[in-house]
Every structure is written in C-alpha cells, then in structure tokens.
C-alpha cells in the first residue's frame, strides 16, 4: 500500500472510528413486550418474537423511537424516515438467524459531538445513529472462559431484542485519549438525557473500534482493523494503545496489515485475531418485510427536540472556565458527573464562592460519590450547602481545612453545615481568651521546651503550636497560636 512506507524513520498516526452501542432505557424490548432488564434469570424474558419462532410478528416500541430521536436532536443529526432491514448471519446469539437493524435509511444521519482535547473543544463528526436489536448473551465454556479455546457456548436470550442505539463516528479520532474523551462525552449525554444506563461494566454501553495507522501527513487511510471486547474506558485506551503500536511495528518492519476483527483480552493486554467460521461479511441486507417504514411526525420531533438541553459537558466546561476563570481540567472533572455541575451552579447563584464550590465538588463530593458508588441525585442535601460553607469561612468560623471536614460529614450525614459545626464543636476557636488559656496550659506543661526556646532554639516553637492544635482538635487558628506563644515568651 503506497500510503504506508516501511521506513523506520517515518512517524505514524492513528485513524480511529468508534461504534458505540447503547442499550435504550425502555421497559420492554424493541419489537416485543418482553421486559428489558439486566440481571433477570436466564431465558425468562423471551417470547415467540425474540426467539424467532415461526409466525411471530415484530411490533416497534414507540419509546425506543422517541429515545433515538432525543439523541438525534442532541447531536444535531438529520432525523428522518427510517427503514428496518434484516442483517442475515448465522451465529447462535440471534435465534432468528438475522438481526433487525437499519441500513441505508437510519433514523439519525450525521450529527456531531464536541470533546475536550488539549484544553479546547474538538469536533468529532457522526456518520449515523441507528436503531437495532441487541443479541443474546454468550458465555464461553472452556479452560479460560475466552472465546478462543471455548469447548461450547451457553446462551441466554434475555438480551436478544433489547433496543440498541448504534452510534457510528466518522474516522475523526487520532489518539486513545481523544477516544476516551469521546466516549465520556457520549456517556454523559446518553445518561443526562435518560436515553441509556450507560454502564459499560454491565454491557449497557459497549464500544468497538476501527483502527488503522498511516504516516503522518498521508491522506489515504491504512488498512483498518476492528477491535472488540473492551469492557471499560480504561480497556478501550489500553486496547487502542496496543493496537496502534502493533500496526506501527508491522509497517516499520515492512509487513502488511490484514483487514480483520481482533478481540481484546484484558488479561494479557493484547488483541487477538478472531478466525470466524463465517465467510467474508455478506449479510444480504433487505428491507424487513414484517415492519413498515417509520415516518416521523415533524411536530413530534420538534416536541422531543425542545426537551433536549442543548449543552454538552465539554461545551459547558469551557463556558464555566471562561465565566469564572476556572482551570479547565478541574471543571472537566465535575461536568461529566450527572447533576454535579447543576448543583455547583445553583449554589453559586445563591452566593457560594465559585472557586471553593468547584474545588469542593471536584474533591470532597467526587471522593464521596466514588466511595459510596452513589449519585448526586441520591444525596439528600438541603439547598445552600456550599453557600453556608462559604459564609462560615468568610466569618472566620471555619478554616478552609475545617470546611472540607465539615463538608465530608455533611455528605455522610445529610445534616446542614451549621448543624455539623455545632454538634462536632468544629468551629475555629477565634475567641482569644479561650485560646490564651490553652496556650498557657501547653507552656506550663512543657518547661523543657521553653528552656530550649529561651536558649535560642526557635525551631521547637513548632512543637508547641502542634500541642495547641492537638488540644483544640485542630480548631485553633495557627497564626493566632503563633502570635500568642511569641507574646508569652
């Protein structure tokens, strides 16, 4: 291939396109009334339609159409008439021996997603976002539990027929980090708009990657490889990094890349060639004769579009960074968590200090959510937590350090900051007479240290300050303590 020379001095760049599959948050499957639920007992949510029994007829779920349109509206896609096709293939995960999907007339065509890349917004274009049905879940039997050395496969058809939105990007992605940002952005949008649960670990959001490399500056694409089986964003980054390196080395050594599908294995950190019994893809698509085309009422599209808040996390992060002078990376850590950014902005609106609020959200609140596995919506907090903490710092009641401790307690207990301060006696001691009493006690209890200080060893003053802080459980103002000790000696 002329685009790829085997010169070891040539730098290569990756060209990546991602296919993100998101299971839609519906109560029932795409074409039948079986429940769409994760973790049900195997083969209990199945019926003649999703098992492909003869004579069964599919009927499209209105909610699935609505959720697909909601996504299309959010990413500015062309939303239009959609035709379902049969994609024919023999694979035991689809009992019908075909999958109903959309082919040349997807419900959403085009569109774009903006991601944060090197401190700026970067646009990733979408090819399409179409509706299809999910396949059954395979469990490979064998020594390793992996597909390669499986002796047999067990299948649960509960997932067969669950509505999926397949979001296909243009090959606009160049680095594993951009891929990560893109997936984070999509995950946030799909989650915020209540389109999908977007839990990669449960498989409600899955990512496949098309990867090729080419010499920097070349226009033609290299031969692309499809990489599957990444179960987390971390796996995606690892798999892409590995695959880009693998292809680069092959070209550098004068070899050629074969167009194929490769399976990522988390355990050995490599991609493996999948040799399928299937011939080269020949899916013989044809319009699904059991379903009529979907033509959408323009007023319905507009009504759904009107409910879609037009702000992506990436764009919101940039806006907030500009508005308040925030560090973009710090803002980025809060905008992808559902509800967190809304909370920060609501608190700022009622008087909370913007920068402190951002820091609390990105540190204490994020730490709490990570620890408990909870969500912002699940925190039973009264309005004004950050605003109260801000004024408690401003009036000298709390040091910044104490404020953070109070917040952690507020998050755990659900009590208000003022309640925590009074219950725990956490208020910073600014009453000088109380502090003077403690300082006098500490000095009286440490005559040897006082001798050293009088003898000129000023370093040990720190020890006394430490003793006072200990006696006040950290509630003393260190500057005041220093001043009081100095005046006493």
């Amino acid at each position, binding site marked *: 291939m002329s685009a790829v020379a085997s010169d070891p001095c040539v730098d290569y760049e990756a060209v990546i396109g991602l296919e993100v599959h998101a299971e839609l948050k*519906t*109560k*029932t499957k795409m074409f*039948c*009334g*079986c*429940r769409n639920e994760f973790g049900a*007992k*195997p*083969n*209990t*949510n*199945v*019926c*003649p339609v999703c*098992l492909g029994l003869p004579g069964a007829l599919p*009927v*499209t*779920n*209105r*909610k*699935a*159409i609505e959720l697909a349109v909601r996504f299309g509206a959010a990413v500015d896609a062309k939303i239009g008439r959609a*035709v379902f096709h049969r994609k*024919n293939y*023999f*694979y*035991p995960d689809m009992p019908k021996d075909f999958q109903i999907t959309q082919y040349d*007339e997807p419900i959403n065509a085009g569109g774009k997603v903006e991601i944060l890349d090197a401190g700026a917004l970067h646009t990733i274009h979408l090819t399409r976002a179409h509706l299809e049905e999910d396949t059954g879940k*395979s*469990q*490979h*039997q*064998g020594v390793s539990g992996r*597909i*390669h050395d*499986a*002796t*047999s*496969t*067990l*299948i*649960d*058809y509960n997932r067969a027929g669950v509505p999926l939105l397949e979001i296909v990007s243009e090959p606009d992605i160049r680095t594993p980090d951009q891929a990560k940002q893109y997936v984070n952005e999509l995950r946030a949008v799909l989650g915020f708009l209540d389109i999908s649960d977007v839990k990669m670990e449960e498989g409600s959001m899955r990512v496949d990657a098309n990867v090729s490399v080419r010499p920097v500056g070349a226009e033609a694409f290299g031969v692309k490889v499809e990489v599957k089986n990444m179960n987390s964003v971390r796996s995606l980054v690892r798999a892409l990094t590995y695959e880009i390196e693998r292809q680069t080395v092959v070209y550098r050594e004068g070899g050629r890349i074969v167009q194929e599908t490769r399976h990522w294995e988390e355990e050995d950190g490599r991609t493996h*060639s*999948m*040799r*399928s*019994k299937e*011939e080269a893809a*020949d899916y*013989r698509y044809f*319009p699904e*004769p059991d*379903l*009529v*085309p*979907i*033509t959408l009422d323009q007023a319905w599209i507009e009504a759904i579009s009107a409910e879609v808040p037009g702000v992506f996390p990436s764009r919101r992060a940039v806006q907030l960074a500009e508005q308040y002078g925030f560090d973009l990376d710090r803002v980025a850590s809060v905008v992808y968590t559902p509800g967190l950014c809304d909370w920060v902005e609501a608190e700022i609106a009622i008087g909370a200090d913007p920068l402190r609020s951002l820091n609390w959200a990105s540190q204490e609140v994020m730490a709490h959510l990570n620890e408990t596995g909870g969500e912002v919506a699940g925190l039973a907090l009264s309005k004004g937590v950050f605003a109260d903490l801000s004024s408690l710092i401003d009036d000298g009641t709390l040091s910044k350090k104490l404020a953070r401790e109070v917040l952690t307690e507020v998050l755990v207990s659900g009590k208000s900051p003022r309640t925590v301060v009074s219950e725990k006696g956490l208020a910073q001691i600014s009453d000088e007479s109380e502090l003077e009493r403690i300082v006098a006690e500490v000095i009286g209890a440490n005559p040897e240290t006082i001798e050293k200080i009088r003898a000129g060893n000023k370093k040990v003053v720190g020890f006394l300050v430490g003793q006072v802080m200990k006696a006040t459980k950290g509630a003393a103002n260190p500057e005041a303590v220093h001043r009081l000790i100095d005046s006493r000696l």
Partner: protein
Amino acid sequence: MSISREDVLHVAKLARLALSEEEISLFTVQLGDILNHAAAACALDTEGVPPTAHPVPIAHLLREDEPRPSLARGLVLEEAPAVEADRFRVPRILDET
C-alpha cells in the same frame, strides 16, 4: 440475467445448506428464472418513483412500551437441543486457531 453455479454454492454456504449435484443444477436454473422475473421490473421507467420499502401503505405502527408476559422457561428450554445452567448450549463458535 443468469446466475452461476458459484453464486448458488455461495448462497447455499451462507444459508448452511448442503446441496447435491442435481440440486445445484436445478437451483441454478430456478434461481435464474426468479431473477429474470424480477428483472422485468427493471425495464420500466421508474424515474421519480421512490423505492417501495413495504407494499402496504401504512407508516405508523408503534407499540406502547408496556411489558407483556413472556414464555415459561421450562417450555422454552424444552425445545433446545442441549441445555446447561438454564441456557441453550451450542457448539463452539470460532474455528481452531
């Protein structure tokens, strides 16, 4: 319009059908006839006529997102050639590597 023996073999392989020599010859002729019949439509002037995705002129047939009872598992698995751990058991999927 005719189709070749190779076309028939390819389609048979995709459909997982093992055909005898007589069947291959027979289906090559029969499939050719069917294609010729359909090809007659190509002779018509369809300029400005949108492709038909479905012969029935109805567009909106949507179902509300309300669950309906599924089949009893015992009944479902009764039809399976092999069952293990309440799942359908099938032969391995990939070729030897």
